[in-house]
């Protein structure tokens, strides 16, 4: 009796937690269902009746419309997956290798080096000079590297990682040093294996950053073969925003003699579904690494 009271919360409290989580979970999942449902609803029905969870008139038109150019979509999936995988592997390693030395209390210049990273979160030179560097200086127009390099290192993650590495007892490092391990071995065999939860977390978020990025494609890619999936899906949203917020353009185009055809709402929802696509499975994949420890801890506790 006493043991239970100490190891776990009161059953009533536990039940309350479950209820809270179940309600919140519903709040989070239901909209996704709605998006999927709308994407399978007949277009005219949506405009007439608004959104409904159970389509009054079922239709796969939105997906047929999207996949009329299925080679393009598949190719873009390919680009996105390639960029995401390369970028995440490279990026997480680079960030970890920067964050770990920063976390060492004996490293000279760690203050300035931390500031060096943090400064980039605050100030940036703006689009034009960034573009000049990539296009003129590096010559990366229409190169997949232009999709990878800009997102490789996120200062935010470096500084968060540093906090985690600081938690690792320095005695471990000292012990390894006494065993004759060099810095690289210490990092590779002691620090990083102990930091799987944060590495997995940062990897997950880096995956998401790459997956969701459309802006780099907008800037640097004009070759359809190298357009990322998210740009392919998002550009219509950009078109809609442009035309619905810019009265001048809307009138100018109307006067010019054409209505720019915007995709229907069902297509927009289908784009959202296609854009999220396989990435929802990334979460459970990475989740194993940062929840496993939690459960072990809980059971032991």
């Amino acid at each position, binding site marked *: 009796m006493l043991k239970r009271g100490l190891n776990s919360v009161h059953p009533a409290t536990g039940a309350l937690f479950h209820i809270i989580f179940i309600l919140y979970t519903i709040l989070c999942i239901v909209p996704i269902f709605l998006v999927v449902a709308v994407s399978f609803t007949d277009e*005219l029905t949506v*405009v*007439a009746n608004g959104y409904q969870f159970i389509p009054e008139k079922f239709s796969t038109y939105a997906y047929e*419309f999207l996949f*009329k*150019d299925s080679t*393009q979509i598949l190719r873009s999936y390919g680009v996105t997956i390639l960029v995401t995988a390369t970028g995440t592997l490279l990026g997480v390693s680079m960030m970890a290798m920067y964050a770990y030395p920063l976390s060492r209390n004996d490293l000279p210049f760690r*203050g*300035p080096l931390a*500031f*060096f990273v943090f*400064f980039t979160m605050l100030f940036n*030179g703006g*689009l*034009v*000079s960034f*573009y*000049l*560097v990539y*296009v*003129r*200086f590096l*010559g990366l*127009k*229409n190169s997949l590297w232009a999709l990878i390099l800009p997102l490789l290192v996120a200062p935010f993650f470096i500084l968060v990682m540093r906090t985690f590495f600081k938690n690792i007892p320095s005695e471990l490092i000292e012990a390894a040093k006494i065993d004759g391990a060099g810095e690289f071995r210490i990092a590779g065999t002691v620090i990083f294996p102990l930091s799987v939860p944060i590495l997995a977390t940062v990897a997950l978020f880096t995956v998401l950053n790459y997956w969701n990025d459309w802006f780099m494609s*907008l*800037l640097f890619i*004009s070759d*359809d073969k190298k357009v990322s999936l998210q740009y392919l899906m998002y*550009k*219509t*949203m*950009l*078109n*809609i*925003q*442009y*035309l*619905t*917020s*810019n*009265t*001048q*353009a*809307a*009138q*100018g185009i*109307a*006067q*010019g*003699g*054409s*209505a*720019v*055809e*915007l995709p*229907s709402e069902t297509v927009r929802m289908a784009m959202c579904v296609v854009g999220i696509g396989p990435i929802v499975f990334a979460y459970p994949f990475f989740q194993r690494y940062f929840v496993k420890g939690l459960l072990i801890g809980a059971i032991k506790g």
Partner: protein
Amino acid sequence: MLRKKKRLVLLVMLAAMLALAACGGSGGGGSDSKGGANSGNGGSSSGGGDQAAEIDASKLPPYEVILMYPGSPQPDEKLVEEAMNKILKEKINATIDIQPIDWGAWNDKMNLMFASGEKADLVFTASWNGHVDNVTKGAFVELDGLLEKYGQGILETIDPFLLEGARVKGKLYAVPTNKEIAASWGVLVRKDLADKYNMDFSNVKTLADLEPFLQIIKENEPDVTPLFQSSTQTLVGYVNGYDNFGDPGVPGSVKFGSTDPTLKYLIEEPEYLENLRLLRSWYLKGYINEDAPTSTLQANETARTGRVFMWPESLKPGKDKEMESTIGFPLTQIEIVPPYITTADTTNSMIGISRTSKDPERAMMVLNLLHTDKELLNLLDWGIEGVHYVKVPGNDNMIKLPDGVDPSKRAYNHGSQWMFGNQFLSYLWENEAPDKWEQFRKFNESAEPSLSLGFTFDPSNVKAELAVLNNIRDEFTAALETGSVDPDEVLPKYIEKAKEAGAYKVLQEKQRQLDEFLAAKK
């Protein structure tokens, strides 16, 4: 410690400046992805008189002309380019690279292209797309000389009003598409419903005259919105009878047909308040969709459901027939403001030559061909005959989709035909009026040039004020013009806030420029 930090930052900044100064600057660097290698005679255009030059294709070095315009990339673009290249190679030893850019990316991409000095030749531009500002910044090549030499075909075919209206401070920086030169403003109406209730629109002269029809629909058709408006498509915004010189965001308008060159601030005109009151009463009576001020749906999108009776539209001959195919209901148009030729109309679709072009002469030759070569223009407009369209038997000028092609899955259908060349050379679709271009010509002849045709406002002196005014405009117009708020209460607030933000400073600057323009015209 801190000093060191500072030194480091300074050092890095210095290095960055040096590196960027080297690669930024005025363009022409070596890292162009295309075209840099095969041209190299850009500077040779200066000599020569003003007469038309004979073109000998065999003496011209090969050159690739890049055409940039806003629109969706098309799957069959490469095929069309190849077909166009056959003609272009033979005539002027050039090839073309079509580069459509999505609307949402267009502004960013253009600005970056100009700023980084990347190569481009023919670029779409329009008054509503910052043409004057770009000209002021030096984005476009001056065209008068080039037009004399290589654009005779354009000069022969285009309506002189169009060229006159496209000038910026007396000089030409872009060639307008040859098409209708004026727009009239009014509404589109569902013809089947109008017929059902025997509506007669022949006496409609003002907005108020529309009310009885809206009332009939409201009373008899509970599922139909009598008047559909959205945040960017409002009756008062479209049909106000004032010329705003192609930029509704800048205070200072002249009433159509007026000979008085004094600029008025539209929102202070009694007429404007009258119109708003009318719209407000309609909104309260339920004639207007409730979500109008925040609606991002386009009227034609909603109209397709059959739940809309009337919506504001920019009109030209045959607009109703043109829209019928997308909307799926019979339509008719009611003109409320008759056609005037204004700067806004003559500059709403133009093509300029970018300063970064390596060979502006050749770009002009291509432009000239787009205005004179029917085959070339139709390739760009509609694609390849037999693949993307077929001719209607017995009529060389009418086309239709080849059998078995799903209209929603066309491989070359950019919808940007109105941006290119001479529209009167463009093929017509089966469902369009066979005499569409004839109607256009008549329409053009019937339109009257407005007093200030050719005047364009240069915003560079009042940009800060305009930036503030843009926000204020966004805050009030959609709400007011859709009728969702009480104008007697809100409009005075709008006026007060706008005045405080320097609306009159802008108005005076515009008046000054207009007076100068008119003085120079005389």
